[in-house]
C-alpha cells in the first residue's frame, strides 16, 4: 500500500460524485449519522483518491451523505496515493471490515468490485468470502456476482425488507420486467411464503414455457390483483394459492376435495382428521384432546354420529384424474 497523507480539509464540491467505482453502500439511512455530525462534528475523515485529476471518494459514502444533508461544504479527508483501483478498494474493504457487519447487498458489491478490479475468482473465494462470512464456494461467488447486477427494484426490496440470501438469490432468476410485478406481491408475505411464491412461479413458467410476467397477466391472477376488495396482504395470499393450484393441480384437487367433504359432513369441532402427508398412503389420523371420561365419551359419540352419515363415505373418495391434464400443462 502507498501513502496516506495527513488529513486536510477538502471542499466537497471538488469531489467527483458521479464516480462511484468504490461505492458499496447504496441503500442506507443516514439520519442517526446526521444527528451525530450535527452534535459533535465529523470525527473520522473521508478517504479520497485522485482519478483523472479529480478527487473520488474511496470510503465514507454514508458520512458524505450526512454532510451533504447538513449543508456542510467542506470536510476533513485523507488522500490516498494509490493509482491501482484494486489496492485502493482494499482500503475501504478493510476499513469497513473492522467496524461493522456488511449487509447482503454490500457483500455482493464488494465481491463484484473486486472481480471488476481484477481479483481472480479463486482468490475472492479463498481470501474474501470467508472474511464476509460467506462459504468459499463457486456457487456463492456466482450468486453474489449475480446479486450485484440485480435490478434496482429488487435491490431496494432486499435492503428495505432485509430479505435473506435464500430469497435474494431466487430473485436473480427473474428478469427486471418480471421483478416489477413480483416484488409488490412478495413483500406483504412472510419468508416461507415468499420462497413458495418465487419457486412456484419460476417452475410454472419453466414448465409452461411462459415468462413469469405473462403468467401473472392471466385473467385469474389479474382478477385478484385488480380487485379492490382485498388489501395487499390478502391479494398476495390469494395469488400464492392460485400459483400452488397451478403448480400442484392434482395434489391441491385432492386437498380441496378432502376439505370439502369435511365441510359437507360438518365434521365436529375439536376433533381433527388428517390424511397422510401428501396422501402418500390411504391412512388417516383422527385425534382429539380430552380431560376426563365425560369429554372422551362425548368425542366418541360425535365420531360415531358423523361416521353413520352417508356423506362420511366422501372422505375416502379421491378425484379422478387423467393424463390429459399433463397435456394441458
Amino acid at each position, binding site marked *: 500500500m502507498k501513502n496516506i497523507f495527513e488529513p486536510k480539509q477538502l471542499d466537497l464540491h471538488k469531489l467527483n460524485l458521479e464516480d462511484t467505482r468504490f461505492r458499496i453502500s447504496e441503500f442506507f439511512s443516514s439520519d442517526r449519522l446526521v444527528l451525530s455530525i450535527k452534535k459533535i462534528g465529523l470525527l473520522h475523515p473521508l478517504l479520497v483518491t485522485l482519478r483523472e485529476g479529480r478527487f473520488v471518494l474511496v470510503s465514507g459514502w454514508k458520512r458524505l451523505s450526512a454532510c451533504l444533508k447538513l449543508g456542510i461544504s467542506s470536510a476533513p479527508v485523507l488522500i490516498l496515493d494509490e493509482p491501482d483501483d484494486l489496492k485502493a478498494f482494499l482500503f475501504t474493504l478493510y476499513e469497513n471490515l473492522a467496524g461493522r457487519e456488511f449487509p447482503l447487498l454490500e457483500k455482493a458489491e464488494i465481491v463484484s468490485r473486486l472481480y471488476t478490479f481484477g481479483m481472480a475468482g479463486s482468490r475472492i473465494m479463498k481470501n474474501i468470502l470467508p472474511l464476509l462470512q460467506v462459504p468459499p464456494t463457486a456457487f456463492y461467488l456466482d450468486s453474489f456476482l449475480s446479486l450485484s447486477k440485480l435490478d434496482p427494484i429488487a435491490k431496494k426490496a432486499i435492503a428495505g425488507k432485509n430479505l435473506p440470501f435464500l430469497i435474494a438469490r431466487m430473485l436473480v432468476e427473474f428478469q427486471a420486467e418480471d421483478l416489477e410485478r413480483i416484488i409488490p406481491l412478495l413483500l406483504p408475505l412472510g419468508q416461507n411464503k415468499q420462497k413458495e411464491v418465487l419457486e412456484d412461479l419460476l417452475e410454472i413458467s419453466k414448465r409452461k414455457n411462459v415468462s413469469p410476467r405473462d403468467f401473472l397477466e392471466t385473467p385469474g391472477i389479474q382478477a385478484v390483483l385488480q380487485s379492490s376488495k382485498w388489501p395487499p396482504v390478502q391479494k398476495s395470499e390469494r395469488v400464492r394459492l392460485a400459483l400452488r393450484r397451478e403448480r*400442484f393441480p392434482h395434489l391441491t384437487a385432492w386437498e380441496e376435495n378432502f376439505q370439502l367433504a369435511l365441510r359437507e359432513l360438518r365434521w365436529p369441532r375439536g376433533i381433527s382428521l388428517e390424511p397422510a402427508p*401428501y396422501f402418500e398412503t390411504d391412512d388417516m389420523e383422527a385425534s382429539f384432546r380430552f380431560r376426563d371420561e365425560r369429554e372422551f365419551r362425548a368425542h366418541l359419540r360425535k365420531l360415531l354420529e358423523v361416521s353413520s352419515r352417508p356423506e362420511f363415505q366422501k372422505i375416502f373418495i379421491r378425484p379422478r384424474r387423467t393424463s390429459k391434464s399433463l*397435456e394441458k400443462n
Partner: protein
Amino acid sequence: MASLPYYPDKVYIDKKSLDFPLTKRILGHLDGVPQEIVPSPRRKQAILEAIRSSKDPIGEGKRILYLTVQKGRFVKPCPCTPRVIGCGYFIINLNLQCPLDCTYCILQHYLAEPWLTVFVNLEDLWHELDDFLEKHHRRAIRIGTGELGDSLALDHLTGLSADLISYFRGKANVCFELKTKTAGIGDLPAVQRPGNIVVSWSLNAGKIAGEEERGAPPVIERLQAARAVVKKGYRVGFHFDPLVRFPGWEREYEEVVRKLFQVIPASSIVWLSLGALRFPPALKKIIQARFPETKIIYDEFILGRDGKLRYFRPLRLELLRSVGEEIWRDGLAWKPRGKRAVENTLFPRLWGQDKS
C-alpha cells in the same frame, strides 16, 4: 447415429496403482492421452480442488479418468432407500461415476469425487468375491457392477466385463448382471446358454433418451445391442427406470415396449423392472444448475417419507400401471384378470417403493 466410445481428456494414475496389470491394460488403450502420476494424497486433493472450483465440476470430472486402488470393500449390499422395499442386490464397486451425462443421474449428488474412477487391484476383488460367495453359498445371489457407474461404458478401455464373466460363469447360485445404457458390447465373449450372466439395459421413451440421457445411444441401438448379446448366448434384462411423465408419455412408452418385444424374444428376458422418477431435493438444485433447459423436475413432485421427491401418488401409480400393463400385454400376451390385478401382481415385486 452410433455414439462414440468414451476417451478421457486426461488420466491421473495413483502412484500405488502403477504396477497393476489393469493399469497397464487401460493405459495401453490411451496412447496420446495426457497422463500424470499422482504421487500423494495432497496432490490428489489439489487436483480435485481444481476440478471442484470449475464452473461445472461434475461435467469437468467426466473428462478425467483416475486409476487407483480400492482400499475398502468392493462388494456391498445395494444402498436401498430407508423405509422402502429393499432389492436384496449386491453391488461390485469397480468403477465410480459415468461418462454419460443423464439429467436425472443420482451419481451427480451421490459421489463425492467428480472424476471417473477405476479400481485396478483386481486380485483383491477376486479374493473378496471368493470369500463373499463362500459365505453366501446357500443363498441365491444377485450381484452386478452397474450401480455407481455404467457397466460397459469403459469396457473398451478396461476389458473388465470379460474378466467378470469369466469369474462368474458357472457359479450356480449367482446371477451376475452387467447394467448399461450403451451399445458397447464388442468385448463381451460368447457364453453357453442358458447362463447365469445377464446383460441389462436401461430403457426409456425416445424423447427422454434423446433429451435427458446425454451421450447415451438411442433406444433402438440399445435394443439392437441387446439382440446381439442374446445371439452370443446371454440372457437380458431391461430397466424402465426412471419412468418420466411428459406430454405424450403413454404413446411413447407404449412404442418402446412394443419395439422391445419386436426386437428381443421374450424368452431371453430374465427381468424387467419399473421405477418412476425420484430424486433427493439436493439433486434438483444440481439439475437446475447443470441442465437449465430440462423440464422433467417441474412436474408434481411431493416429498416422500424417505426424503426423496416423488410424483404425487396417483400420477406415480398411473405411470407404473400403464407401462406395466403394456409389458404384460405385449410381452406375455396375457394379463391377470380382475380389478387392479396387474398392479397387485406387480407390486410385491417392485422395490424402491414405500413399504406401506
